[in-house]
């Protein structure tokens, strides 16, 4: 596995005050680039960027459209959606690496960058497999069993994950324990808050 280091983070968020707060918080450790709209994000998202925190709901170009265009341009850096929009079936087709629901505190931002760093160094196929698992966890965390069972999008996602699983054996082989921990914590967090008590 290649080591991936994040030095420059692009924050895309139309609420300028919030953007600046995020930038100030992350600026202590990273070089931060900000964009207050989707169009601005596409202008500044060059090869110097290592990771993106991307709002979904913005006037003009939405975060979803920005993500599509970045991927179309071959920008494969890790992206976390940072949004108040709860994940819905539409996320199945999106190319993000993590999904954060606002509000996110400063530690949450740093944790997210750590997770993106772990994901950024993983080979393309394994990373896509992990992305699909994270999407599944996100939807399971938001939808009840009957909604999941009746969703064609969710069925397609599960089918894709199943197919990829047959090609990928031990997905943690080649990952360090720290990287595996970050991926497990991403999936667990997306499944929902920990149960209040132990289930066993």
């Amino acid at each position: 596995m290649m080591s991936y280091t994040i030095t420059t983070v692009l924050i895309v968020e139309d609420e300028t005050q919030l953007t600046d707060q995020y930038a100030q918080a992350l600026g202590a450790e990273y070089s931060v680039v900000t964009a207050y709209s989707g169009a601005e994000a596409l202008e500044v998202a060059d090869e110097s960027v290592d990771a993106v925190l991307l709002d979904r709901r913005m006037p003009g170009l939405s975060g979803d459209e920005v993500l599509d265009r970045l991927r179309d341009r071959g920008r494969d850096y890790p992206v976390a959606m940072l949004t108040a929009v709860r994940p819905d079936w539409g996320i199945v087709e999106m190319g993000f690496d993590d999904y954060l629901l606002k509000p996110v505190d400063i530690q949450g931002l740093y944790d997210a960058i750590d997770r993106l760093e772990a994901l950024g160094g993983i080979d393309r196929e394994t990373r896509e497999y992990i992305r699909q698992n994270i999407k599944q966890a996100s939807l399971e965390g938001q939808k009840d069993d009957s909604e999941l069972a009746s969703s064609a999008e969710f069925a397609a996602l599960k089918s894709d994950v199943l197919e990829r699983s047959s090609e990928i054996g031990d997905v943690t082989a080649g990952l360090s324990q720290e990287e595996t921990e970050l991926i497990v914590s991403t999936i667990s967090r997306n499944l929902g808050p920990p149960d209040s008590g132990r289930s066993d």
Partner: protein
Amino acid sequence: MLVKHIMTGEFETVSRGQTLDEAVELMLGNEVEHILVIEEGTPMVMITRRKALLACYKTDAPLSEIPVSGFSRGLETNIGPNETVLIAVGKLRQAKADCLPVVSGMSVEGVLTRDDVIENLSSITDNMTEEDERRDEWTAQSLDER
């Protein structure tokens, strides 16, 4: 890698009319930390070592006087055989569980334990499957309501 590739396919069972001493005897004799309670041919409850301990603590009764029917029915926290191991580890962690019944439709196909995961995934360690916080383990009201 899917749950069905690493789960333990065989599991011990007791019937709903039996008592906890019989369940514990089977668990100890077979070196497992879980047992399923069968009702009309269908597994309805999974008793774990922890649930058995909690039952002893809360009832302050001999094992032979604790009916397995006293444990709450339901296998709500479970995993499917075709789920990925990543999702399974996430569920073990979210549920703060040591094991999950592997359920397909109405039938139980096996049990997935933390040991199954740790043995089969090279970079998974014991502490990745569980949350650290256990301070409230001994304070619940009923046998197994947590």
